[in-house]
C-alpha cells in the first residue's frame, strides 16, 4: 500500500514535467524514424556499384552493363563529374570506370566490407560479358545473396537499429534517471527529510525503481509499435526471451546508476561521471553501427563491456528469432557487470 502510493506519486509528478516526459518517449522514436528512413535503401539487400558512364559506349560497355545487372548488382550509372563528386563525399563503396581500352574498379577503403563483396560480383560480370561478346559458353557462377544471419529483416537498417535503441533506453534510464535522481535527492536533502519519517527507505527506493521500470516498458512498447507500423519490424523471437534479456539489462544498468551515484557529490559532478561511462559504452557497443572493421584489441575490449553482449543477445532474439541458449557467455558477462555494480552500489550508497 505504501509502495503503491509512492509509485503512484512518482508517476503523477513525472507526468507534470511534460517536456521531460515527451522527450523521454519521443527521442528514441525520432532516432528510429530518422535513421531508419535515411538508411532505408543504403544498407539494402543488393550490393551496389557506381558505373561511370562511358562518353561513347561500345558493345563491350553494353555487354558489361547488362552482365552487372544479371549478377544482381544495383547499378547507378552517373556522368563522370557526378560520380566523382559522390566518390569524394565518401558515399560510394565501389566505382567502375573506363580506363583506356579496359576498366578500373575503385574501392572505398572505409567501406571495405561492401566494396570487397561488390568487387567479386563485378569480376563475375566481366567474365560473363567477355564470354557473351566472344560467343563462348557463359561461365558457371555462384549466386550471391545478402542476408541477416537469421534470414529475417535483411532489408532494414531500422531493424538493426531498433534493438540498439531499446538497449540505449535501458542504459540512459540507469545512468541518467536513476543515478542522477539519487544524487540530486541526496544533494537537496530529500533523503534526509524522508529519513525523519517512519517510511522505510527501501520502500521509497523501490517505488522509484518501479516507476523507472514502467517508464522503460512504455518506451519499449512505443518503439516496438512504431517499428511495426512504420517499418514492418516484428519481434522474431519469443517475447519471453525478449523479456528476460530486457530484465537482465535493466538490472545491470540500474545497478550502474546506483553505483555511480555513490561517487558524485553534486548533480554537476554526476553528469560528468555518467557521461564518461555513457559515451564509450554507446559509441563502441554497436548501438548505431557495427565494429567489424575496428582493430581486434578494441573488439575484444568491447566484447567484455556489458552493452555489446547484451545487444548481441537482444538482436539474436529480436531480429533473428534465435534462442538465448547460444548467448549464455555473453549474458553471463552482463550479469557479472550487474553484480559487480550492485556490490559497488551497496558499498558506496549514501543517504546524506
Amino acid at each position, binding site marked *: 500500500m*505504501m509502495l503503491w*502510493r509512492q509509485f503512484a*506519486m512518482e508517476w*503523477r*509528478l513525472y507526468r*507534470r*514535467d511534460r517536456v521531460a516526459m515527451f522527450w523521454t518517449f519521443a527521442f528514441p522514436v525520432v532516432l528510429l524514424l530518422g535513421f531508419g528512413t535515411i538508411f532505408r535503401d543504403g544498407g539494402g539487400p543488393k550490393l551496389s556499384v557506381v558505373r561511370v558512364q562511358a562518353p561513347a559506349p561500345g558493345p563491350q560497355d553494353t555487354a558489361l552493363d547488362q552482365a552487372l545487372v544479371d549478377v544482381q548488382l544495383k547499378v547507378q550509372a552517373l556522368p563522370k563529374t557526378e560520380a566523382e563528386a559522390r566518390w569524394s563525399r565518401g558515399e560510394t563503396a565501389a566505382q567502375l570506370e573506363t580506363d583506356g581500352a579496359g576498366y578500373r574498379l575503385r574501392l572505398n577503403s572505409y567501406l571495405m566490407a561492401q566494396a570487397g563483396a561488390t568487387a567479386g560480383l563485378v569480376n563475375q560480370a566481366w567474365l560473363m560479358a567477355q564470354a557473351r561478346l566472344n560467343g563462348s559458353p557463359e561461365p558457371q557462377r555462384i549466386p550471391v545473396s545478402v542476408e541477416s544471419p537469421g534470414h529475417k529483416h535483411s532489408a532494414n537498417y531500422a531493424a538493426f537499429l531498433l534493438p540498439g535503441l531499446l538497449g540505449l533506453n535501458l542504459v540512459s534510464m540507469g545512468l541518467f534517471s536513476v543515478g542522477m535522481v539519487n544524487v540530486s535527492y541526496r544533494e*537537496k*536533502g*530529500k533523503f*534526509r*527529510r524522508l*529519513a*525523519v*519519517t*517512519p*517510511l522505510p527507505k527501501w520502500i521509497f527506493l523501490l517505488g522509484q525503481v518501479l516507476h523507472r521500470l514502467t517508464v522503460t516498458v512504455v518506451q519499449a512498447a512505443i518503439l516496438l509499435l512504431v517499428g511495426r507500423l512504420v517499418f514492418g519490424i516484428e519481434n522474431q523471437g519469443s517475447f519471453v526471451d525478449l523479456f528476460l534479456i530486457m530484465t537482465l539489462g535493466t538490472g545491470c544498468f540500474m545497478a550502474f546508476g546506483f553505483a555511480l551515484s555513490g561517487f558524485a557529490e553534486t548533480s554537476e559532478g554526476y553528469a560528468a561521471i555518467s557521461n564518461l561511462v555513457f559515451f564509450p559504452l554507446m559509441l563502441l557497443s554497436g548501438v548505431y553501427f557495427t565494429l567489424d572493421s575496428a582493430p581486434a584489441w578494441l573488439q575484444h575490449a568491447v566484447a567484455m563491456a556489458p552493452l555489446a553482449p547484451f545487444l548481441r543477445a537482444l538482436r539474436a532474439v529480436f531480429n533473428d528469432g534465435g534462442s538465448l541458449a547460444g548467448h549464455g557467455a555473453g549474458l553471463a558477462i552482463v550479469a557479472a557487470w550487474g553484480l559487480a555494480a550492485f556490490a559497488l552500489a551497496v558499498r558506496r550508497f549514501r543517504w*546524506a
Partner: protein
Amino acid sequence: MTGSALQIRGLRKAFPKVVAVDGVDLDVARGEVFGLLGPNGAGKTTTLEIIEGLTTADAGDIEILGLTWAERGQEIRARIGVQLQSTSLFNKITPREALDLYGSYYPKRRSTSELLDLVQLQEKADAYHITLSGGQQQRLALALALVNDPELVFLDEPTTGLDPQARRSLWDVVRRMKAEGRTVMLTTHYMDEAEALCDRLAIMDHGKVIATGTPASLISDLAIPSVVELTFEGDAPEPAAFAARLEQAVERRADLWEIPTPDPKALLPRLLEAAESAAVPFQQVHIRRATLEDVFLHRTGRSLRE
C-alpha cells in the same frame, strides 16, 4: 502531560576538522518551547540532527519521550515532527499533495485541510511548490512537521532568510503549537526570536552549552539590566582615558561604545561631565535594556553575529 520530553547527557560529535558537539547536557520539559541560541557553527544543527536520528553521536545518551533510538527508533519517528534547515520537495508537488503524501507515512495523522488552515496556505493548496514564496515554503515545511500530530517538534532555524512579516507569521504558528500542548525545540541565531518565543534557552558556542535558563533569568543574571550606547561626532576619544575619567568600564565595538550599567540614572550625569571635560561631542546617547545579545557577549567576548 508533565515530565521530561527530552534528556541529553554528555553528547559528543567530532568531524574530521572540528568538534561540533562537545559534551552537551540538556533537559527539555513537556509543553515548553526550548531554544538553542548561538552563532553559526556553534553546533546547534548537529545537536538537533543527532536528536532527530539523522546523525549518530560519538558519545552520549539521549532519551526522547522516554524512548531511545537504539530500541524504539520507529516509534520516535512516529511521535516527533521535524523541520530541517532546508526542506526540499519536488518542484511540481502541491502543498495539498505533499501533506497527503507525508501524512500517509504515519500511523496517526492530522487532516490536510486543518494543517493548511493552521499555516494559512489554503489559497496556495494546489499551487506547485516551486511557485510558493520563501515564507510560504517555510510554512509548508512547518505544516509537514505537524502532519503526524507530534508530541515533540524540532525546528531548525525556522525563520532564517525570511522578511519580518513572514517571521512574525511563523512565530504565530510556533505559539499555536505550544498552545496545543506540544513541546517545541528550535534553533536560532536571532536573539529577538529566542526572547519572543522561548520559555527556556540554552546558549551554545563552540559545541558547548555556556548558559541555560529563561530569557529573563539569563539577562538578570548579568546584573547589568541596562546598557548605554554612545556614538561620537568626529573622532572618538581614547577609550582608556575616557573610562578612567568616567570611573566605569567601556566596551568599544567599532564606532559604537557600550557602557553596561546597573544604574543608568546615576551614570548619565557623570557621562555628560566626562564628555564635556574631554571636549568630545556625542552624536547619540541611547539607553537600552540588556538583551540576550549582551548575555552572549559577556560569556564569550564575541557578538552573536560575528
